[in-house]
């Protein structure tokens, strides 16, 4: 019986930059989820019904996403960051206060999504460089969702 001495894929791919990047995207996503939830509760106006509904779909998507990202960090044998204060500090996402005009909720969320996209792109690229295809794949999946959301939001604001 022989015991394999080869390095596990996890050990090969565990890169502090990737872990940090994932934790940042985790924090960003958590902060965005909270802001989207706030918009869902407090939006008012002629577009209340569609916006209230779409904001709910989005925070539900983000709720699943944060779990997936955190578990990827764990799969890399590192620890996910957490706690509201810690996540908010890490994300440094500009927050908004209600009440706002309905279009302002959408515009503010666009800016928040753009921040997530910036950080996810960086993490995707770092994962690619390090050969961590699973993390890269996860970031690509998240980016696709954020970019689609951005397209829809920007279309709503266009006159």
């Amino acid at each position, binding site marked *: 019986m022989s015991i394999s001495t080869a390095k596990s894929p996890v050990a090969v791919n565990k890169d502090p930059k990737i872990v940090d990047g994932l934790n940042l995207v985790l924090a960003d996503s958590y902060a965005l989820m909270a802001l989207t939830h706030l918009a869902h509760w407090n939006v008012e106006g002629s577009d209340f019904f569609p916006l209230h509904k779409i904001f709910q779909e989005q925070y539900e998507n983000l709720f699943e996403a944060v779990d997936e990202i955190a578990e990827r960090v764990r799969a890399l044998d590192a620890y996910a960051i957490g706690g509201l204060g810690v996540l908010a500090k890490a994300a440094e996402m*500009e927050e908004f206060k209600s009440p706002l005009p309905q*279009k*302002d909720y959408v*515009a*503010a969320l*666009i*800016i928040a999504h753009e921040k997530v996209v910036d950080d996810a792109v960086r993490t995707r690229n770092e994962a690619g460089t390090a050969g961590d295809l699973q993390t890269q794949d996860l970031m690509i999946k998240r980016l696709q969702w954020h970019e689609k959301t951005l397209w829809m939001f*920007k279309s709503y*604001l*266009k*006159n």
Partner: protein
Amino acid sequence: MEVIDELIGQAGTVSADEVDHLLELRWKLRQYDDAEGALKLFCEVRLRMEQRHYLAFFRMRRWLENHLLASVSICPEANPQFVPVKLDHYCVEAIRRASLCLALRRGYVLLAPRLRFMFREVEFTKGNPPSAPSRSLELAEL
């Protein structure tokens, strides 16, 4: 500035007149010393263009709110107190009044109030406006 450059670059959606106003606004923001003038111009351009370019004007509003302060004095000789500026209105005087109301809600006593807008000296830190702006501007009598 990039937001303004992008707007100017959108052929067909911005008139020549509007380009002039945007360029003037860009110049004033770059100079960073005439907050009253910049705010007045922003309000004029916003009134005219916001419905067609909502996101761009939201970004500009956000930037201005992060970089402007209202300096409120209870009388001409008093040391000023500083309150953040919210651009919820399209007219400078309405914004001025709203800033005064914010000062009142914070418990400032206002005898013969003076309020002037100014740019923040340092980068905005969330929740912590700078304590001493460095630029002096003409007072706006109320």
